């Protein structure tokens, strides 16, 4: 900003703020901390906080702020220049396997599970899975926007692929994921999860499980590829250090494997395109598609209602951190049932869902403060909806992608019949029952596997 500034932060985030200040090039930023949290605290308690001390320094809070704005700068704080990082060495100092394994865990190079030590010989073997040169750049990745991006080569990705026990033939799939530069451990106080779906000939070539238990720990390729995304995020994308580069309050079990699965393309109903074809690739291409969300439900509902109506009802009342997008993962049996009810494509089914889901009143009003103000001022149709109470369903779908001001919720358009939906449909599973899964995942992009062969 170019003016004297003191950030006032709650004490719980000291490690994070110290790290971010350094990464932003102000290593000695003058920060004052308040007790944590300050949200939802009554005024009398807030007065005590303000009249009290910074919990991290013990200094009176107001005096510390004043001092931060007036104390003369040191020569170092006033000078431009660069903060040098430790140079990266290609090899680590030699040690016994036992000590090295302990070191890898200690340094946060792993996900806490057993790994294979990446010797040069094993990495060379992994590199045989691609025609790309070891020193070619693959991409850059960061834990979240305030952090700086780290860079990585083909060889660096191979090191991580070895660590999770991947076979060389999986390597192009892993490189394609890495090329997207999307961390699987996004740093937010909400605990993000990711999903990766593999399509195309590579699925059969590397023996991924598209059938019974496709989403479970039952197949080396499904397991290693999904797990590798997290190690890449930690080691190549600088993510996943709790308190500094990872803030998810509870964390997310899905980060262990990132819901890695292939789509069961031969189980798609006639007319339903594979996911990668929907995203503009040819059917003969091999592709990874990435999704971002938070939570995932596994559902079987034996009801007299047909599946498409059960799914519609679930979507209407589904509530999680991310309530404006959804990805459905249907068993081929469910996909066939849905298609038979008159949905010739995935898009047609998503459109039906988006156009026929409302939003529970309590959720709508809690997320749409502008609409609430208008309702309270008697503006229709909002006032009428509000009168029906928090248990009534407001006829506005959360699953239509509407343009509108940020932070205003989904009030922007009440028509939007032709807006694209935020619902994705993937088909996988072994057809042992009419199960389906779904969660608040949104599509985050696809990458060609073939380019990394």
């Amino acid at each position: 900003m170019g003016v004297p500034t003191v950030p006032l932060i709650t004490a719980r985030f000291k490690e994070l703020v110290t790290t971010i200040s350094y990464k932003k090039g102000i290593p000695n930023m003058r920060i004052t901390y308040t007790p944590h949290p300050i949200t939802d605290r009554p005024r009398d308690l807030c007065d005590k906080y303000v009249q009290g001390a910074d919990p991290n320094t013990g200094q009176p809070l107001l005096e510390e702020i004043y001092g931060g704005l007036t104390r003369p700068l040191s020569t170092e704080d006033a000078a431009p220049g660069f903060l040098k990082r430790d140079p990266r060495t290609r090899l680590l100092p030699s040690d016994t396997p036992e000590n090295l394994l302990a070191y890898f865990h200690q340094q946060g190079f792993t996900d806490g599970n057993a790994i294979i030590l990446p010797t040069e010989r094993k990495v060379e073997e992994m590199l045989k899975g691609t025609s790309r040169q070891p020193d070619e750049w693959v991409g850059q990745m960061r834990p979240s926007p305030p952090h700086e991006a780290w860079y990585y080569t083909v060889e660096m990705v191979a090191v991580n692929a070895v660590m999770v026990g991947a076979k060389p033939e999986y390597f192009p799939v892993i490189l394609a994921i890495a090329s997207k530069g999307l961390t699987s451990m996004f740093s937010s106080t909400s605990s993000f999860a990711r999903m990766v779906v593999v399509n195309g000939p590579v699925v059969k070539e590397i023996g991924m499980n598209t059938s019974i238990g496709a989403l479970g720990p039952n197949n080396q390729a499904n397991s290693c590829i999904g797990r590798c995304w997290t190690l890449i995020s930690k080691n190549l994308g600088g993510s996943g250090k709790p308190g500094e580069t990872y803030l998810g309050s509870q964390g997310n079990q899905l980060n262990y494997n990132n819901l890695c699965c292939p789509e069961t393309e031969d189980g798609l109903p006639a007319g339903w395109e594979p996911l990668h074809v929907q995203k503009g690739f040819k059917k003969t291409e091999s592709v990874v598609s990435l999704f971002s969300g938070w939570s995932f439900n596994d559902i079987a509902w034996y009801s007299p209602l047909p599946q498409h109506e059960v799914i519609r009802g679930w979507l209407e009342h589904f509530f999680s951190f991310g309530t404006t997008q959804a990805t459905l993962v249907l068993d081929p049996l469910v996909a066939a049932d849905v298609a038979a009810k008159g949905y010739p494509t995935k898009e047609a089914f998503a459109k039906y869902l988006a156009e026929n889901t409302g939003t529970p009143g309590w959720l709508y009003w809690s997320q749409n403060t502008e609409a609430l103000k208008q309702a309270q001022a008697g503006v229709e149709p909002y006032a009428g909806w509000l009168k029906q109470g928090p248990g009534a369903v407001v006829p506005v779908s959360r699953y239509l992608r509407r343009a509108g001001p940020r932070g205003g919720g989904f009030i922007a358009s009440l028509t939007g019949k032709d807006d694209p939906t935020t619902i994705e449909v993937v088909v996988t599973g072994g057809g042992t029952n009419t199960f389906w899964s779904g969660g608040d995942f949104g599509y985050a992009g696809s990458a060609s596997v073939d380019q990394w062969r």
Partner: protein
Amino acid sequence: MKGSRRFFLKSGATGMGAAALAGLPALPAFAAAPEKQEKIVVMNPRGIQPDIRKIPMAARPATLDGKTVYIVDVKYPNTKPFADALLAGLQAKYPKTTWIWRPKAAGYMDDDAALWKEIKEKNAAAIVMLGH
């Protein structure tokens, strides 16, 4: 059943006897782990961290008397009581300074270039108040 159990126990439940009994392929002969491990060299799994360009901090005035300081509120949900308490506390303790509470535009993750410009043009200082 009883007889099988006796046989299993007599076999010592080790090596091929137990494996054969369980219908599993024979295990290789047990080899004791070496007491001393050889040192090996492994590759670094980490990527490249870029150097960081330093941002010099803005020069500080000796006093805030007669100056204006903005309390920039990023509007983290339900923190207004704290903002009110902070403003009141600063006004009472440092009355020769003008303290202005100002909510930042849009959501807490959005930029507010107009406000930063206003603060700079007034040669003021700022306290940026972040949740949680």
